[in-house]
Structures are given as structure tokens and as C-alpha cells.
């Protein structure tokens, strides 16, 4: 506790009272708090925190808001993307807000609700479900999320169900007086053969610094297919932490796209466990770090079963004093023969002051595998710029075109056209 108090993280632990919670839930919080007390704060000597300092975050004095907060409808409308047709689910400061969410009915086999609703309807299922994807691998901030766990959202898609309309989860962090910290928890489970698209968006309201510390647990049963688009467009004052824990059963397929555009300091940790044969995990990402931004990605991909495939493809554009960290690890366990893993990371540096630190690691304990990784850091090819300039395009526009071209490899993987258009215009603005 002392380390937390010293670091000024104690106000994070002030959670909104979710009403009566059962003993097992209390116990989870207590255990999380206990392990936090035995751990030091993440520091630069820790391998995964080598390039990332916590100081800026600690200096802000974030506090968990005690009062529930409902943003005015007009502000909420401004956050929506025109033309994006989804079933909307809104979390405000980590609490599910049904009154802001879509009310259109979903098929019966989809069960969606706040954790408090689940607690009332099916406490046994929730008890078995919560935390299974994390499986003892909880990072420091995941434990912090766990220790204050009050509410969140859980989505259960029944066996064989195919949902055409994407589900859209909007995370809003906002507070009135003190800089707020929200610690949302999102659970997603697809039963065997289910298929769906989930769009997760992190957005900021207002200009005050905010902090989000999200934990997302995703589990895919046999042959389930999930397309997961995670889009972070918070303000340049925002601090963002998110830990995704993904577990895949045999034959399941996960396609994840990470877009990181906002945030002064944003750290994303992706933990993937391929525990059934022939599971497939495709992860791609784009980060655009402008002046004063730090975008930090950590991937931990474990091939635990044979014949799984994973593909990690991350691209970054850095300008101003923007910084990015890409730390990826692929582990192939002894049993995971016939694994196929490819990790690539490409960075485009646009300014003198930008910095990128990349660390793509392979840990291979099986021999019959195909694993590779590649990293590049470079600037815009003068020849390409010349080509466009020679055709009468002014320098700034030419650079923007080339950057959008570089980004398009990832953006084009987004399924919805209006969302793609929205992202292109945000990137265009950010590049100036």
C-alpha cells in the first residue's frame, strides 16, 4: 500500500459504490490489492517499462470520481460517427449507461449488460468468467483495475450466432472538478461458432486531463470469429492505459485492429494466448504520435498449442517531439509445433525530435516452426516526394498524401466505410 500511497495512486481506489457485492467479488479485490502491495511501482529497470516513464501520469493527481456522471446528450451526439450503423453501448467512467445506449432488441442468444446486472441475473456465470482470460498474468495496472472493480460491461454471444450489425462500445471518461480516472472492465465471450464485430472507441469529453485504465477480457470458444476494432481518439491531454487479454480455443479466429491517435501518454498491452490448435490471431495497428505524445505498445503472443498462426503488423508515424514504443514478444511453447508467426513493425519519422524504440522479440522452444520478424525505421523517400512535387502538388499536401498512403495499409482493414473516412480525416488533421 505504501508504494501506491507514496505515488499518489490512493485516490484511484475510491470506487463508486456498486451496491452490495458478493463475498467472492470482495475477495478478488482484496487479493488484487494484496499483490499490488508486494509489487513496486513500474520503473525503468523493468524490461517492459524501459522506455516509458510513469512520472507524467503520477503528476496529474488523477482521482476516481465518486459521483456518477451523465454527459449531456448534445455532447454525446458530437462523439458519434455519422453513417456508422452500430448497436451502441456506452460506458461513462467505467459504468454501463443503458440510457445512453441503443435500445433496439438483439437476438436472444446475445446477452449484454452491466456487471451489476449480471450479478443479479447470473452470478455464478460471472464468477467463473471474470478474470479467466487474465490467468495470473495481470500487469500492475490490471491489478489496480481489479482492486477497484465496481462495474463494467459483459457481452456473451451464444453458440453459432452470427451478428451482422457491429457492436460499438464507447468509453467516455469525464469529470467535473478533479482530473478523473476511469477504470472500465469489458468482458467479451463468443460461444462456439459465433461471429461478430466489436468496435471499441475511447473518446474524451472536454479539455481537462483524463485517465482511462481499461481491462478487456476476450475469450473465443471453438471456431468463433471476432473482428475487434479498437480506436483511441482521446484528447491530447488524456492518459490512457489498456490491457487486453485474449484467449483462443481451437479453430477460433481473431482479427484485431488497434488505432492509436490520441492521448498525451497512451500505453496498450495486448496479451494473446493461443491455447487450441489451429487458432488464428491477426493483429494490426497504426499509431500516429504528434508533438508531445507518447504511444506505447506491448504485445505478448503465446503459441501454446500446435499449428496456430499469428500475425502482428504495426505501423507508426511520428512527428514533432512524438515518441513511440513497440515492444512485441512471440513465444512458441515446446508443444506448439507447426506454429507460424510473423511480426512486423514499420516506422515513419517526420521530424528531428521524434523518437522510436522498438523491441520485437522471438522466444522459440519448438523446432518445426516458421517465425520471423522485421522492423524498419525510416523517413519519407525523397523520390516519392519529388514525384508528387513534379506534378504540381505542394510539399505539405504531398507529405500528407504519402503518410495517408503509409497508414492506409492498416486503415483499409477497418470494415466500415464511414469509420475509415472518419479516421482518415482525423489523421489528416493530426499531420497538419
Amino acid at each position, binding site marked *: 500500500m505504501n508504494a501506491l500511497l507514496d505515488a499518489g495512486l490512493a485516490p484511484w481506489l475510491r470506487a463508486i459504490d456498486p451496491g452490495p457485492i458478493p463475498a467472492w467479488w470482495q475477495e478478488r479485490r482484496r487479493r488484487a490489492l494484496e499483490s499490488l502491495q508486494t509489487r513496486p511501482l513500474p520503473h525503468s529497470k523493468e524490461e517492459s517499462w524501459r522506455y516509458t516513464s510513469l512520472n507524467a501520469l503520477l503528476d496529474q493527481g488523477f482521482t476516481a470520481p465518486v459521483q456518477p456522471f451523465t454527459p449531456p446528450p448534445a455532447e454525446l451526439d458530437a462523439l458519434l460517427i455519422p453513417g456508422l450503423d452500430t448497436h451502441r453501448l456506452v460506458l461513462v467512467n467505467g459504468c454501463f449507461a443503458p440510457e445512453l445506449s441503443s435500445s433496439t432488441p438483439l437476438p436472444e442468444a446475445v446477452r449484454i449488460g452491466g456487471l451489476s446486472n449480471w450479478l443479479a441475473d447470473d452470478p455464478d456465470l460471472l464468477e467463473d468468467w471474470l478474470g479467466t482470460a487474465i490467468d495470473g498474468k495481470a500487469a500492475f495496472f490490471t491489478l489496480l483495475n481489479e482492486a477497484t472493480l465496481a462495474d463494467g460491461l459483459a457481452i456473451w454471444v451464444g453458440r453459432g450466432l452470427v451478428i451482422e450489425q457491429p457492436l460499438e462500445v464507447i468509453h467516455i471518461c469525464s469529470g467535473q472538478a478533479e482530473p478523473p480516472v476511469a477504470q472500465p472492465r469489458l468482458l467479451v465471450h463468443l460461444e462456439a461458432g459465433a461471429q461478430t464485430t466489436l468496435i471499441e472507441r475511447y473518446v474524451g469529453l472536454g479539455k481537462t486531463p483524463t485517465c482511462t485504465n481499461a481491462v478487456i477480457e476476450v475469450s473465443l470458444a471453438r471456431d468463433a470469429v471476432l473482428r475487434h476494432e479498437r480506436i483511441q481518439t482521446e484528447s491530447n491531454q488524456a492518459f490512457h492505459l489498456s490491457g487486453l487479454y485474449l484467449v483462443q480455443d481451437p479453430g477460433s479466429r481473431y482479427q484485431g485492429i488497434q488505432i492509436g491517435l490520441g492521448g498525451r501518454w497512451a500505453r496498450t498491452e495486448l496479451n494473446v494466448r493461443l491455447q487450441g490448435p489451429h487458432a488464428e490471431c491477426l493483429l494490426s495497428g497504426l499509431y500516429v504520435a504528434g508533438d508531445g505524445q507518447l504511444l506505447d505498445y506491448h504485445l505478448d503472443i503465446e503459441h501454446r498449442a500446435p499449428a496456430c498462426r499469428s500475425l502482428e503488423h504495426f505501423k507508426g508515424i511520428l512527428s514533432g517531439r512524438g515518441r513511440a514504443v513497440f515492444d512485441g514478444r512471440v513465444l512458441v511453447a515446446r508443444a506448439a509445433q507447426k506454429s507460424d508467426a510473423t511480426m512486423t513493425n514499420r516506422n515513419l519519422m517526420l521530424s528531428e525530435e521524434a523518437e522510436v524504440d522498438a523491441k520485437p522479440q522471438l522466444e522459440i522452444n519448438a523446432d518445426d516452426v516458421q517465425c520471423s520478424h522485421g522492423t*524498419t525505421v525510416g523517413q519519407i523517400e525523397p523520390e516519392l516526394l519529388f514525384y508528387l512535387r513534379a506534378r504540381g502538388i505542394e510539399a505539405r499536401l504531398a507529405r500528407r498524401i504519402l503518410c495517408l498512403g503509409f497508414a492506409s495499409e492498416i486503415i483499409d482493414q477497418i470494415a466500415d466505410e464511414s469509420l475509415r473516412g472518419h479516421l482518415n480525416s482525423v489523421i489528416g488533421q493530426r499531420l497538419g
Partner: protein
Amino acid sequence: MSGSPAFEGIVKSDYEHGFVTEIESDTLPPGLNEEVIRTISRRKAEPEFMTEYRLKAYRHWLSMQEPRWAFVDHPPIDFQAISYYSAPKHLKEGPKSLDEIDPALLETYNKLGIPLEEQKVLAGIAVDAVFDSVSVATTFRETLAQAGVIFCSISEALRTYPDLVRQYLGSVVPYTDNFYACLNAAVFSDGTFVYIPKGVRCPLELSTYFRINARNTGQFERTLIIADVGSYVSYLEGCTAPQSDENQLHAAVVELIALDDAEIKYSTVQNWYPGDAEGRGGIYNFVTKRGDCRGARSKISWTQVETGSAITWKYPSCILRGEGSVGAFYSVAVTKGRQQADTGTKMIHLGRHTRSTIVSKGISTGWGRQTYRGLVRVAQRAQGARNHTQCDSLLIGDRCSANTVPYIEVKNPTARVEHEATTSKISEDQLFYCRARGLNAEDAVSMIVNGFCKEVFNELPMEFAVEAQKLLSISLEGAIG
């Protein structure tokens, strides 16, 4: 392919160079304290500043922690159980020619295939052979002296050229650098000193054979090579060690300094005793090697073939300080049995238009565990820096492992950094192709592996390339299956 009995016999092939030469050694009792350090310094008749330097390093070492971050396991090392000085007794006065050398010693070298007297005539290589800790023979002094090249043991250099040593020793690897480098600075026994004067192209390939002989003697070699403006030198280092049941610690430090337009080519074939099939015995090879491209357009290249040692832990690095300087690292590492290797390089780009190339080939068999760990750093001032890194791992057998841990840190937009890595096994197609042409499985594998390593072998001097290929085939014998 696995379980094929065809290779069983060769798997158990014993370490060829496992023999102990019975020579009386003048060895200090095990243990380390300031008195031991003073004794080492006194016996070597070192100047005062050196004794002080050693003591400073020792005091700093006491405050340091043994590093734990490498992917290697070994029982804790008892630094008080090691004897820090061992000199073959018969050599106290120092030999004037080969005739004065103990015949038993010469026999050892003959078994290793480096007959000094023959080399003098045939190979044209000057050999500064290190038998345990004191240099025993130096050949071709005259040829080198004519060119103005200084090639001698570091103890001799300390006595003869104290100012030169004082100017450069510890300027690339300061004693505060890391735990083992610090220990080395305190207790280093002997090593090699090379100085190539301005504009001189060293007429011979310089070579040192290291050999750990007396049991229980840690070897702490210190090598210092200075290439003055516009000079060139190629330096060869090779090691074999006799079979021994105790783990032996080898913590060497190598410092290279290249001034304007100078080039240093440093090649290593490392074949220390790797331990028996269960991983008992074997050398711990914890080495700090670093080159400093201090001058503009200077060039340093490291080429290594690592087949021996129970644990190898080394990262030959280049600090590319001078404008337009070039660094290169070519490595083949083989781990079999219970061997562990955590090796790689660091390329620190500080100057403008600096370039570096990294080619690392890892082959892991049996229970072998191998890690490539590398750092490419481009500082903000390093305009137009360029790096290409390629590290490939080949896995043979399902109990070995290969890890790749590259760090890439770029702070300049004009830098171009590329990193590629692959891990795979020998493909059935390649094997089938060779087998269909009448090669037996083992020759086929040997051929494929040699092809895999070719990029690195091409960088070795001729004599070493042949030796390295032979060593590789011997290492892989029986490991396949």
C-alpha cells in the same frame, strides 16, 4: 528426422581437445582481496598507476551486483574459490626463442594443430600464444618491428610502453562498465597489446591462441588494440580448452580503438570445453568486447564463430563516433548438449553518416539454448545513419530453443534502420533434394548448415574459414537426429 539412429554415435563424440598438460604452475591460492591484487601487480612488475587502477576497480566491484538479465542458468559462482593467478613456472625468466620453451607446452600446441615452428615458416602468422596467463612465445617480432607494429603481451606493454597503455586502457570499457569487466580490470592476468602506427598496413595477420590449462584457474585476459590514423590490422583469436570437471570462469575484456581512416578486423573462433552431455563442467565465457570508431571513416568489424563453452555471454559492440565510421558484426553460434549462449552486438551510432551491418546466425540443437540480443541506437546527431540487421536461427530437434531480443532506438529521422529475423528448421524439401542426389542425411545437413552460415564464414580470414567450417561440422556431428 528426429530419433534417427544414424547419428547416435556421433552425438556422443567426445571433446577432441580434452587433455591436460602436466606443467608445474605457480598459482596463487584461491581467493580475492586487495593483497591478492597487489601480489598480481607486483609479480608482473607493473607501474604504480596500474596497481592503483586495479585497486580502484576492485573496490568498485565490491559494490556491484552480479547481473541476472541474460537467458542463462548456472549455479552461483563463488568468486573466493577461484585462483586469480597462474603462470607456468618454467617461464619466469621469459623465453628468448622457441628452443627455451617447455617441450610439454609445445606438445600441447601441436595437439591443437598449431605447431609454432612450422607456423613461423609456413603460415606467415605471428602468434602470441597465451598458456594460462603468461605469454609463452612471440614470433615474427622482427617483421613486425620493421613495420613499427607493437605486438606483445599486455604485461610487457605495461613495462615498456606505460604511457601508451595508460592513455588507452579502460577508455573503451571503463572498469565501471559491468560486473565482469570490473572484475577483469581488477585481476586481469595477461593478454595482448597491439599498436599499429600511422599509415601502416600490418604486414601479418596477428593471432593469439588462448588456452585455459591449470584446473580451477579463472582466466582474465585483457586485449587492447589501437589502430592509429590510416592503419589496418587483422587480428585472429582462437580458443580451445582441456577437459575439466570444474566450471571455469573466463571473463575477458577486449578494447579496440580505431582512429581516423583506420580499420580493425577482429576474428574469433571460440571452442572452449562445453561440458559433458549432462552439462557438467565446461567454461563460462563472460566477455566484454567493444570497439570504438573514434576517428572519421574508421572501421571495426567483429567476426565470431562460437561453438564451445557451457555458457557464452558476450556482445562485441561498436561505438560509431567518427563521422562516416563503419561497424560490422558477423556471428555464427552453435549450441548443443546443454550449452547456453546469450550473444549479440550493440551498434551505437553517434556520428553522422555512420553505417553498421549485423549478420547473426544461430544454430541450436539438443537441449541448447540460444539468444540473440542486440541493440541498435541512433543518437539525435547521427544524421544519415544506416543499419541493417539480419538474425536467423536454425533449430534442430524439439528440445532446443532460440530467442531473439533486438532493441532498436532511433532518435533521428534521416536514419534508416532495418531488422529482420527468422526462425525455422531445415526444410524437408532441402533435405530431400540432397538425399535424392545421393548425400547421406548427415552430409546433407552439414552442407545446408554451412550454406546457412556462409555469409559469416566469408568474412573470416582464409585460414580461419577452413578451421571454422571443420569446427562446425564436428560440432554438429551427432547433434543431428
